[in-house]
């Protein structure tokens, strides 16, 4: 059988994530889920005096792709400035993940980046539960 997108590295990271955990306090924290698949990711960031990422941890629950991508992203982003982080290109993360993804799974791979940017921009949580009126 073709392992497809489930290369060793992805499974390794799924089993042994990098930078997993939570920071208290953090300079910014953000959590979001992909309600369509239930994947949820939280990212906590501490910046240094020069507005560079000093510490970054992620936590959450989801599929191997979203989880591996979160490890790869947090690893890559260390030491970058807030400005760099805000401009971090989606293509770069897909490159890091390094396996061909279908449309539906691209969303999984990019969830952590979406969370990171939303946190960096200080976007209010769009998903605060409210009834429809």
């Amino acid at each position, binding site marked *: 059988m073709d392992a497809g997108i489930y290369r060793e590295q992805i499974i390794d990271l799924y089993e042994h994530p990098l930078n997993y955990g939570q920071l208290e306090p953090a300079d910014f924290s953000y959590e979001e889920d992909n309600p369509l698949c239930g994947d949820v990711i939280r990212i906590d960031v501490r910046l240094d005096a020069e507005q560079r990422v000093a510490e970054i941890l992620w936590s959450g629950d989801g599929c191997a792709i979203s989880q591996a991508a979160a490890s790869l992203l947090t690893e890559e982003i260390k030491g970058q400035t807030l400005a760099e982080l805000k401009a971090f290109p989606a293509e770069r993360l897909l490159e890091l993940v390094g396996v061909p993804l*279908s*449309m*539906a799974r691209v969303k999984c791979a990019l969830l952590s980046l979406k969370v990171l940017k939303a946190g960096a921009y200080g976007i209010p949580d769009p*998903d605060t*539960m*409210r*009834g*429809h009126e």
Partner: protein
Amino acid sequence: MYDIERVRADFPILATEVYPGVPLVYLDSAASSQKPAVVIEAMADYYRRYHANVHRGVHRLSEMATTAYEGARVRVAEFIHAAAPEEIIFVGNATEGFNLVAQSWGRANVGPGDEILLTEMEHHANLVPWQMLAAERGATLRYLPFNDDGTLALERLGDFLTERTKLFSFTAVSNVFGTINPVRELVDAAHAAGALAMVDAAQSVPHMPVDVRALDCDFLAFSSHKMCGPTGIGVLYGKRQLLEAMPPFLGGGDMIRRVTFDGFIPNELPWKFEAGTPRIAEAIGLGAAVAYLSALGMDAIHAHEQAITAYALESLSELPGLRLLGPPGTQHGGLAAFTLEGAHPHDIAEILDKDGIAIRAGHHCAMPLHHKLGVNASARASFYVHTTTDEIDKLVAGLHRVRELFRLERD
């Protein structure tokens, strides 16, 4: 050059016989158009090779179906020059487009004393949803009159658009008169009065180039089945910021971002307005129809229909006792509605049918228009990409036989 014989060969139904030995002369495209083989085949191919439910599936068929469904949306957006595919909402037909706006935007924005302006030449699809809304919200409907020649009384627009007008909804092309209304001018007038503008494009999008950004309209609706596409699907275009501000219309799967026992959060555009399993095959068929029409060229189609219509109006006007409804000349969409002294439209349609000629008889879903004209019904021949002058000649010959049969020749 517009190669009419090649176009005709694209439509399987044009090769059929209505009765043994009697080929079809289809002059009822304004009611519903025929379908080229590419459209029929696009849907059959979908069902044979890659049908699955969309959006929520990880597997290959679901991904293929999703790509095709969303690809159709992109094609439709490009076809009418929408700013983004998110502005294209797939609904059941043009009628549902009006209901969506009336119920979602209307309930949220129209209250007692507010006015909605329509015209006297509207199709029921652009009348009844507003009558329902007005009755529910205590709003008032006003109707811009038409002149004797079937054009709108544009000079009176100022009297009808007031500071109470919330929306002006009007047809781009009348399905009875054939009048081509000055859409951009009407949109601008609505905006100048602080109202929104909605366009009934059921008879324009199939027949001529339409650019929603050039028109600057806020909403626009049309039906797939009148433009070489399948039944069961229509399009509502809306400006993004308006659609975003509107509450949902129908609730269910796909249109939600999240559901708990206590409530739900709507999904993003365009899915917010598409509840439940969407019209997948239908969107794919409509996408194929749009590709087909684009390949012919909307300018070429319009030019062809203008030529056919001019020929038809000329030929028909020579029949004794025939009264043409609507404006003469080139500002006339691809149809001709008429009455014939001494023969009822139903009898005309039935007699023509025996010659294989399909025309429509009745009020064409525009009862108030007919009532104002003082006729109960009219006959209507309507034209499309495949109509020939030869078919117009058959229509005229058929009408002569109607006069004979009804012993009108003596008059």
